[in-house]
């Protein structure tokens, strides 16, 4: 229990709002829990919201990032499940962005009874292209990105953030730049490699929890075909919501819109 509490502290776990139903918000790489700030007011009245930072987030002391441990997404899943256990959550809805969407999938495979619903924002089971699969990236492109990241992290962040945000929302770009730059460069690189090495295609069928895929109309990281792939291969009842906005970070660039869709998806 001691370690559980420490984990809560280290990962800045917060529990907000009051409500019978528990809702977990998990952020993606490059952001931290503050990314949900604009979404929260829509949910804190009717849900108990649990927020936490991934261990790779800039807001977590980088000393806790164990390069030997966080080599796959499974330890992240361990963290998530420990947090839920420490908060004595026995059932919750889970909203995960990007990598956290994948973490949520893995967690729901391990503990299906824990999750009533998964909401996947900007999720992709595999970023690299394959024979019959279009993930959006070639291995060589990825390597280039990594090289750029290593060469000058700041410049890379400056260039990457507007691309990722997509929509013309300077405030969102600023915010994403801030959180991305808060991450220690070596951790960003390491996590990015982990993410790009991950391949969830084989296991999607194991997910039996109902999922809702929320996708913007244009996302540089996730081509539309990926959404179809997810929908066909996920094992549970799956719905798709296309947001009328662009970019990989709708919770930053179009919080109001996303919140409405989230509410609708959660109500189902």
């Amino acid at each position, binding site marked *: 229990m001691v370690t559980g509490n420490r984990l809560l502290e280290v990962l800045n776990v917060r529990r907000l709002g009051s409500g019978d139903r528990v809702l977990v918000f998990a952020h993606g790489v490059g952001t931290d829990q503050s990314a949900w700030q604009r979404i929260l007011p829509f949910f804190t009245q009717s849900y108990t919201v649990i927020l936490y930072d991934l261990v790779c987030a800039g807001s977590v002391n980088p000393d806790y990032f164990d390069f030997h441990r966080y080599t796959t997404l499974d330890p992240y899943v361990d963290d998530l499940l420990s947090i839920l256990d420490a908060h004595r959550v026995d059932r919750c809805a889970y909203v995960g962005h990007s990598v956290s969407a994948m973490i949520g999938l893995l967690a729901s495979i391990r503990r299906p009874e824990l999750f009533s619903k998964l909401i996947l924002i900007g999720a992709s089971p595999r970023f690299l292209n394959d024979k019959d699969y279009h993930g959006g990236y070639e291995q060589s492109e990825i390597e280039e990105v990594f090289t750029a990241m290593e060469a000058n992290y700041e410049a890379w962040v400056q260039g990457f953030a507007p691309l990722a945000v997509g929509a013309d929302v300077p*405030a969102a770009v600023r915010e994403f730049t801030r959180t991305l730059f808060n991450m220690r*460069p070596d951790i960003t690189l390491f996590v990015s490699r982990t993410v790009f090495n991950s391949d969830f295609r084989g296991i999607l069928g194991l997910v039996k929890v109902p999922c809702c895929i929320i996708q913007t109309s244009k996302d540089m990281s996730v081509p539309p075909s990926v959404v179809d792939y997810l929908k066909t291969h996920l094992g549970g009842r799956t719905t798709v919501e296309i947001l009328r906005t662009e970019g990989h970070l709708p919770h930053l660039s179009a919080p109001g819109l996303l919140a409405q869709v989230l509410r609708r998806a959660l109500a189902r």
Partner: protein
Amino acid sequence: MPTPVSTARQCLTPEAAHALDEAVRVAKKRRHSQTTSLHAVSALLSHPSSVLRDACSRARNNAYSPRLQFKALDLCLGVSLDRVPSSAAAAAGGDDGDEASPPVSNSLMAAIKRSQANQRRQPENFHLYHHHNQVSSQQMNNQSTSTSSSISCIKVDLRNLIMSILDDPVVSRVFSDAGFRSPDIKLAVFRPLTVLPPFHFRPPPPAAAYSDPGPGRRGFSFPFPGFSGFFSGGGSENFRRIGEVLGKSKGRNPLLLGVCACDTLASFIELLEKKIRDKNDNSSGGILPPELSGLAVIRLETEISQFLNRNSDKEAVDSRFEEVGRSLDRNSGPGLVLNFGDLKPFVKVDEEEGADGRVSYIVEKLTSSLSRDNSKLWLIGAAASYETYSKFVARFPSVVKEWDLQLLPITTSSSMAAESSYPKSSLMESFIPFGGFFPTPADFKVPLGSSPYHYMATLSHPCDGQEIVAVSKGASSVPSVVDQYQSGQRSWLQTAEIGTAKDGMFMKTRDDGEVLRCRAVSLQEKHDSMCHSLHQHQSPPGSDIHPTRFSTILGFQLAEDTQREVSENDYSCCTTAYSRPMADTYSKPYSSSAAIDSHQMVRSESASCRIPLSPAEASNNWRITPKHCEKPFNEDSGGALRFPQSLLSNSSMCYGSKASPDSLTTDLGLHLSSPPAATGEPINLKDLCRDLSERVGWQDDDAIFTICQTISEFRARDGKPEGGRLRGKNIWFSFLGPDWHRKRKVATAVAEMIYGSKESLVYANLNPQDGNNGSMLRGKTVVDYVAGELCKRPISVVLLENVDKADVQVQSSLSRAIQRGRFSDSHGREVPINNAIIITTLTVKDDSTKRDLSTYCEDKVLKAKGWPLLISIEKKQLGRELSLSVTSDGSSSSSSVFLNKRKRADDNASTRKCLDLNLLPDQENDDLLDKEGENLDSDDFVCDDHSSRAWLQGFFGQVDRVVMFKPFDFNALATRISNEMNKCFHKFVTPECDLEIDQRFMEQLLAAEYLSDKKRTVEDWIAQVLGRKFEEVSRKHGELGCDYIVKLAALEERSDLEELNPRGCLPPQVIIN
């Protein structure tokens, strides 16, 4: 009476005493007469790896960048230290001959005594610290290791000393000024980073079920303390999880699933074999549970796949399985792992030629060998995709249970991860955790006094070359910073320059950060106490660039956090902090001829900033001196606010922060109002009514009367709180009923009349489904948008449409606003709405008109588009149903009959009563709310309609006036238009010929008339455009007899032929067919 340093030292552990010595040195350097807690903090912070600094970096507010916060801390500390009176006598002091050391002040001594007492009271706590210290010294190289030897000794150790010093009000104020919370820091001091027992091996007890990790199992235990890095990358983690499964009692046979599963399986088997080969290899120590070490492997995958592909016969397989049995008997270790490899051959063969028994034979064989010795034999396999697995399971449903399989999702390929994902340099971990990854020299300049390169060097010293490159790249503009040192600018200008040139990103951080930065900058400026030298540096034209660029990093936005940080005692300090950046922000960017202007402005402002504020104001307000706000406001809102300058010069503008309800500032915004109407003069009701109905363009009806009456009443009341509600002179309306456009028109007209311009209408559509809000909501929530607009134009009409669709955030914000007169945005910032008129609208759909297809209702008319219009001439056919025809004798068709009379009567009745929900709700109100309820029910978008509905009810109960709008009488308008058209038509064509008007056509004209601001738009159009065409028709076709009919229609279907007329519903041309 100050205590001599030597006496104080006696109470301290060597380490703490060392800290005290440092503090004394600081005090001596500054020629202060006493060593205070501030000096101690300064000394403690100056060491880059000190306990306090470390604690701060962990306790800091995540909203700010660590660099900024540390900088702010250093500056605040510097300012506070400057205030400590220095004395010449100090040089002579030192009655104990301690080299003239400034004696320890009473407050610091009290802190030492407090910590002593604390320590004496809680020896077990002390013991704990002691232990932690040792641990942390091992793991973190934390310099704060306590060397105190015995528990009974009541020498104060450093940690306790820090705790007590943090209690000192002077110190906690410094920290809170810099945005830290003392309790957080204390907590962080108490809890050092790593509090693990030195050796905590990761492998869990084998009984722990895989599916239930449990909170206790996972901590931050580092699983492989001495891990060599050979099996780095995703592999080790995967292997560890396979090992976990093998170690379980149930579901112990892993089936790896995932695209990379087969690779992972192969490398895992390889690893096990390797381990068998050289027994001394400890590298798999973390992979297999200890009781399983020495696990042997038998590979069956090739044999099985050969057999299944008919490349071998039964005998080969049989012999292999016998071998398995034999080695199982021989095996003395924990057991055998049987690798059956990929599941794909099992399924593939199955597909090809049905079951010829081979697959089932293998499955049977495996099952039987497993049942032979359950405890010593494991199966392991892999499947690349879930589809393969599900096919296999469909074929052999009982196998999962018989084989006791445990699915293990594998998402990362071990080989890829191993080659690439290990960090290039393990020394990366030796980076100082926060404290600035990219060091900025100026940040720590004041107390630390280290040069930029010095600081960089200390950072990169332990790193390898690559990182030095990285660091220097990150700080690429350091040389330019140094250049500026030489140019002799004031230091605050340099900081600004650093901010712009180098920290492009920090300058773009969120507003809070910016505000923090302004504070930091101005504090530093204060610290240098160089107010007039600033002026000197602004005057030369060459240096203009600095203030200008400087201004870009200073946000006008006001973070209430920062306000809270302003300590009450710090008036002069906080005024400078705010007003200085303000002057720069607004003078430079907005005025082109600003050199002299801003010069004076700064001057006047620096004079005014010394005005002492009363404590309440200092803590609750942000004051902007008049000169500053005129420019930004005029520029910002595009002339929305035309304040007479004379008014402004006497007034002060204040933005309420999170003020307590009894804030003194609630009414201050009122003084800003410029047009006479807003200043509380009673307005003549009749004038108002006439004016409004003229502007709106409809005859004055009850709605308009009610609105005007309310406005004049409220204005006359002069903002006195009504019924105990703490709100200013704001007026809340709710416009109910149909007729969307007129509601908006009324709102615009009210804005024009009361506040003098159309611009003072803040408009937002609360229905997120409507695209009407367009680009203004980009990246913002509605609340933020409205709050932002209200900030710019505090006196305005706020029109919120579709209040029934408001999301939770808007709901709560509105509820608060109506009670307290302050509109809060999503960050909790509040904007006073004392002088605003807030109009919420709600469209109650009129179902009765919907049912009747032949009438014109608002929905249909609003949907009308600018299709091209067409005139066609046809022979009359008898018995055809006409949608709307106008006969030659001019007797208009019975269109007025279409109007639902009952409905109109209802509406009239309710309007006349001036629906006021403050009164007891009567029958109509119930009806009304029922209708809302229906609407909400029918709309799946608002998912929790019950709470929404309840809120709506409550909200309408608080609104000052509910105004009911009548439905717009489209049918009367249609009659008018058709009469007009008929008249026009028969000017040119004989009365025998009929004119038939398509309903779409009419809708289009109705929409044009309805949405237009001018009167007689359509009449003019008929006279000009249509008239000419009728003339053309009569010219072309000569006399049209009574058997002809002229049809007017909209070319809806043929939209591909021509673009939609973008200008609206009245096309400049009509096509003649």
